[in-house]
């Protein structure tokens, strides 16, 4: 979750950076908002032999600082409320909140912080950073695509729309219950607007 938020921040930052660079603005960092109000964080446990199950986080927010002069200096930070996890039904959601999984009572937040943003094409970015989940911090990379950029967007209006994809192993965060049956790899998909 933390990784996801971080990815979202990174993506948002990248999205913002691209338009700024393309028009050659000389200003310093610009702050953009991302979050559940205009976006979603979904995940899927991807390598199960039985089935592939999905969930989402309903409460999260982030900030993107866009550096006009140097895309690589842009940053993203995301905070996810782990208690907002939503699975297919209440029984599954409650299971993922308990100590074997997200342990939301002890670790109510999952965070992501970018360390590097690299442009990979006119509309795509690679965001590197770290995700902190259950008190464990691991690197996480997000591949971001940016669409619908509006560099001249007014305050409160959408600046860009982006989608990020990334993967982590839940075992690296101590979540190993049912791993042989349900799987270890977790795919994240983040879709969000970044707004001024």
């Amino acid at each position, binding site marked *: 979750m933390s990784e996801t938020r971080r990815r979202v921040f990174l993506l948002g930052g990248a999205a913002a950076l691209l338009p700024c660079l393309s028009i050659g603005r000389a200003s310093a960092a610009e702050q953009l908002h991302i979050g559940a109000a205009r976006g979603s964080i979904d995940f899927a446990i991807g390598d*199960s032999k039985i*089935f592939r*199950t*999905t969930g989402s986080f309903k409460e999260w927010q982030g900030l993107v600082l866009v550096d006009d002069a140097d895309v690589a200096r842009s940053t993203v930070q995301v905070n996810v409320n782990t208690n907002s996890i939503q699975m297919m*039904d209440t029984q599954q959601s409650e299971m993922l909140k308990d100590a074997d999984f997200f342990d939301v009572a002890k670790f109510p937040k999952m965070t992501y912080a970018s360390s590097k943003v690299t442009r990979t094409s006119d509309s795509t970015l690679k965001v590197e950073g770290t995700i902190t989940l259950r008190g464990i911090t691991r690197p996480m990379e997000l591949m971001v695509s940016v669409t619908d950029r509006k560099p001249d967007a007014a305050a409160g209006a959408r600046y860009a729309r982006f989608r990020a994809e990334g993967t982590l192993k839940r075992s690296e965060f101590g979540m190993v219950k*049912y791993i042989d049956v349900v799987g270890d790899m977790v795919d994240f998909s983040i879709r969000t607007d970044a707004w001024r």
Partner: protein
Amino acid sequence: MPGADTYTPVAKVLHWLTALAVLGLIGLGLWMVGLPIGLTKLYAFAWHKWIGLTVLTLTVLRWIWRILHPPPVLPATVTPWERALAPWVHILLLVLLLALPVSGWLMSSAGGVKVIWFGYLPMPDLVERDLHLFETLRTLHHWLAWTLMGVLVLHLGAVVRHDLLRRDGIFRRMSPFTR
């Protein structure tokens, strides 16, 4: 060659495989919904979905076979109202045997759970993840299942009525032990 008063061997095999699968699905379905969450429940749901998709396949084959090979003519002892009702009950059963697995498949897709048939064949998601739709489909699947159980009671009641009370040979048409 089967006699004109019995179903073809293929129709019989499809019928009895379906009967076994449906009985298993009903038992599994009634049991698994009350289980606490865990591996037993996970496997129970997985097998319910796998067997359900198998019933869907069998039922499609049965429809095709039934169109190509119409059922045997009913004996003269069957009353006019029974003669009029019988094909509609059979069609209702076949419709339910299509609707139940399809609603279950839709339900799984809407719940965000992709089905991998017997752990080997990933099935396409029929709809996007939508938890409101999932709840609606869960209710639909529940009532379709109870409707099927009701119609099956009528179906078995008819067998008892014909074969044990009247002994008019209706069951013999589908019996796996007659030709």
